[in-house]
């Protein structure tokens, strides 16, 4: 087992690291007939992202392919060498590469639920219990709500599971359908992590070019946050928290202003909201730096100032994806206190199970 590198260059809690699995890796954890469907019939989940061209190695950093040719993110020692030990991570939170959402499963809920369970067991045994620095995410098939809750009950109390990755499907996240999942999340001190944003909108269409999809990632985040706030999710579940992963943060001041103004005009439609939406966001929602626009110090501080809080953003690399943000180069030079908050303390204060 690896321990924290005492010669850490930076004290970092990285809230978005993608470990990667092959079906073969999952066989050990997958019951029949699901395993046999894959082994005997060569079943594969529909690959629903229609883009492979963003970089010289698809959506991954070309230098993150494991030297023996296995996919980027699939080997713990190589990830330790290239990321955890090299940069000197204090903690890293795994956000996976599997999306068990039925938008890609064509309604085969049983298979999706079984895959999510196998994935969680694989993640715990091969990553969380092999490196003290790594924490994980509970994968669920939210379309099978009872199955999803059983899975949260089964692995949610694992001390290194810190959040539930909720797939984005054809219902927005404020919908009462999801409320029992939020209840289970609260019970196990798990936050809701938003990362499975493929496709980027709940009505399921893709733009023609990758550059459009990647530019518009924040819009899917804005939709879900808006929907959760006005549907009263945080009034009904006062301990629930939401981490918005891989949407960036520069849109946040706009969203705070917009929702506050809308609330002033249209309160009568959502009378269960008693506070300004921006106050709900400050208390319940955090955003990631990645993918970070190139901001100089003045611009970066201006965004923080407009948020009215320096506690709302956490650092993420998104390793091993092509748009990885280097902890050394992606952010401008910041004052030590602010740097400490963004690189580690904001995440530490926000994840109930991360100490």
């Amino acid at each position, binding site marked *: 087992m690896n321990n924290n590198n005492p010669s850490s260059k930076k004290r970092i809690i990285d809230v978005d690291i993608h470990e990667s699995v092959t079906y073969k890796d999952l066989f050990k954890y997958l019951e029949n007939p699901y395993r046999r469907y894959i082994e005997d019939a060569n079943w594969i989940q529909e690959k629903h992202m229609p883009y492979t061209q963003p970089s010289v190695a698809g959506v991954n950093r070309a230098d993150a392919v494991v030297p023996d040719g296995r996919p980027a993110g699939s080997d713990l020692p190589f990830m330790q060498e290239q990321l955890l030990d090299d940069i000197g991570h204090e903690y890293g939170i795994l956000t996976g590469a599997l999306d068990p959402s039925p938008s890609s499963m064509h309604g085969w809920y049983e298979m999706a639920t079984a895959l999510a369970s196998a994935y969680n067991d694989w993640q715990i045994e091969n990553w969380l219990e092999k490196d003290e620095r790594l924490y994980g995410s509970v994968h669920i098939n939210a379309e099978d709500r009872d199955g999803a809750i059983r899975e949260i009950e089964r692995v949610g109390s694992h001390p290194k599971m810190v959040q539930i990755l909720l797939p984005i499907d054809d219902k927005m996240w404020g919908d*009462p359908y999801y409320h029992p999942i939020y209840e289970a999340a609260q019970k196990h001190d798990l936050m809701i992590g938003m990362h499975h944003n493929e496709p980027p909108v709940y009505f399921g269409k893709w733009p023609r070019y990758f550059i459009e999809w990647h530019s518009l990632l924040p819009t899917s985040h804005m939709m879900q946050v808006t929907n959760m706030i006005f*549907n*009263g*999710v945080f*009034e*009904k579940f006062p301990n629930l928290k939401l981490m918005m992963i891989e949407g960036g943060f520069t849109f946040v001041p706009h969203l705070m202003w917009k929702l506050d103004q809308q*609330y*002033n*005009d*249209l*309160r*009568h*439609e959502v*009378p*269960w909201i008693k506070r*300004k939406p921006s106050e709900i966001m400050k208390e319940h929602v955090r955003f990631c730096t990645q993918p970070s626009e190139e901001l100089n110090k003045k611009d970066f501080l201006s965004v923080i100032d407009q948020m009215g809080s320096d506690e709302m953003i956490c650092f993420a690399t998104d390793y091993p994806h092509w748009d990885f943000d280097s902890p050394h180069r992606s952010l401008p030079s910041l004052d030590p206190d602010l740097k400490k908050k963004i690189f580690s303390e904001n995440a530490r204060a926000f994840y109930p199970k991360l100490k």
Partner: protein
Amino acid sequence: MKQQTVCHVNDMQPGELRETELGRISVVVCKTPDGEFYAFTNKCIHQGGPLSKGKLCGAPQSDNPGEYTFCQDGEILRCPWHGREFNVKDDGRMLANPKHKLPSFPVKIEDDYVIVYK
């Protein structure tokens, strides 16, 4: 002290709004269902909408998402432009943000006539 006689108390129905002038100031007079009168500036503090063209209505209230209770019927002054709600029974405070309120004017009933003062 400026004053303006608005109307006879029976000229306005409960839930009715009426515009009046107090010198050069436009004022909105409200009669609530309990027969009380209130007067406020006739310009919304948000963007200046003419409140006398709005409505004295009620306010949905709730403690649980998806559930509604309709309260204070006839006591909430709602702007005709952006819909901001002001509680005439609470000194004209805005429901969404009670830190803000409409400037108000005293109203007196003398010999069954409604009079606003400044």
